[in-house]
């Protein structure tokens, strides 16, 4: 199933008279890492949730290739800022998702555990994992069944530099293997390291949508200038 280009046309979202997203238009046709950047409260996570389908889009403003969000649900997964794991072992957490996605269970789980170097914590209860380990398990859960799109909501914002680096490497690897990545971040150094396409939001509006080099080189707006210099 062809999932690109993703097209968002005139998407707006208001909660109790407060405009969270204003007239969002996005066109992206490359399997690269797209970073949705912006300051706190700019609407990054809301936009990501709309793209994933966690927030329903009644106006059908979003399409993936010639498909609606509903049609591509099986091909996507999401990683949250605070990893959400079940009260089970690492292996059982990944197995749970494998069962739900109806993939070759034990074989796939073992392969992913090996790929992300999770062997040492495979039988550890999720409650006893560190923040970084939890996020790695959450990523392992998200890649089972080889989704074509992965959404990551600030996956490294609570991690130390070592885990941050490890998770960025995993994300880059996934992108190289052909997975389309959409990730929110407000960490400018991270955006520089792994970002390829940037969508920059300010107060619910897109004020930049383009390549990383253009984002860093052009003097687009004071908001972006400040964001880059203070980040």
């Amino acid at each position, binding site marked *: 199933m062809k999932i690109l280009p993703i097209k968002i046309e005139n998407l707006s979202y208001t909660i109790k008279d407060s405009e969270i997203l204003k007239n969002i238009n996005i066109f992206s046709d490359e399997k690269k890492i797209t970073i949705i950047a912006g300051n706190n409260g700019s609407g990054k996570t809301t936009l990501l949730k709309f793209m994933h389908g966690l927030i329903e889009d009644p106006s059908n403003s979003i399409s993936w290739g010639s498909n609606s969000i509903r049609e591509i649900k099986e091909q996507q*997964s999401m990683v*949250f800022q605070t990893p959400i794991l*079940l009260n089970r072992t690492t292996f059982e957490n990944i197995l749970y998702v494998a069962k739900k996605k109806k993939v070759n269970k034990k074989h796939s789980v073992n392969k992913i555990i090996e790929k992300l170097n999770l062997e040492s914590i495979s039988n550890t209860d999720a409650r006893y994992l560190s923040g970084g380990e939890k996020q790695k398990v959450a990523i392992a859960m998200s890649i089972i069944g080889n989704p074509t799109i992965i959404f990551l909501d600030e996956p490294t914002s609570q991690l130390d530099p070592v885990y941050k680096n490890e998770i960025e490497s995993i994300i880059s690897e996934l992108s190289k293997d052909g997975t389309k990545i959409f990730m929110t971040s407000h960490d400018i150094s991270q955006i520089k390291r792994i970002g390829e396409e940037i969508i920059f939001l300010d107060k619910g509006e897109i004020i930049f949508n383009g390549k990383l080099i253009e984002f860093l080189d052009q003097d687009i707006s004071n908001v972006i200038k400040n964001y880059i210099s203070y980040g």
Partner: protein
Amino acid sequence: MLSNILETAFHLIFTLNEDLIEIISLSLKVTISALVISVIISIPFGAFLVLYRNKLQSMVILISNTLMGMPPVVLGLIIYTLVSKRGIFGFLDILYTPSAMIVAQTLLITPIVVSLTYEEIYKKYKDYYLFLNSLNLSNFSKLKTLIYECRYALITVTLTGFGRASAEVGAVMIVGGNINHFTRVMTTAIAFETSKGSIELAVALGLILILISFMITLIIKSLRKIK
């Protein structure tokens, strides 16, 4: 005098006195039957209420919470009027039988189990809401996952229901009639034996009830640690 009573009570327990065993067996049979029926209804229902949040759900929870505080004798009275010869369920002919006592205990603990199940599963659903929805699961699948994830908490809820049912006296006295060798359970026997001055058997039964309560508390405490 107290030492004599206690000595006789322990004697009754350790010699496995026939009357004592019969009363304990019936008590456990009635309470466990009521508990099983209640849990089968209440746990899926409590979880269902979490997933299908609407106005009806708020009303059901409100009713359930109100029924939690209903005096057992009032409930016993209501059941009595329903299952007595002139009641709408009179044709069932269950008044003054263990079946009527099971009905009373089931109705007594169901609101408790529904409300506590709802609370536990609602807490868990708030934690897992994004995760479960991101997997595009059916509501049935979410329900199964939530019940499994709350398993220890739900055992605690079940034990709370058991404790409540086994300690109940008013409703089972009204609908069971406290008939010797037929509907006499621990709580009604304690009330009856004490009133006629035969305190030894009442003390022995009281000790057993305290032991059951202690064991339930111990299990709940251990489960809380696991949780």
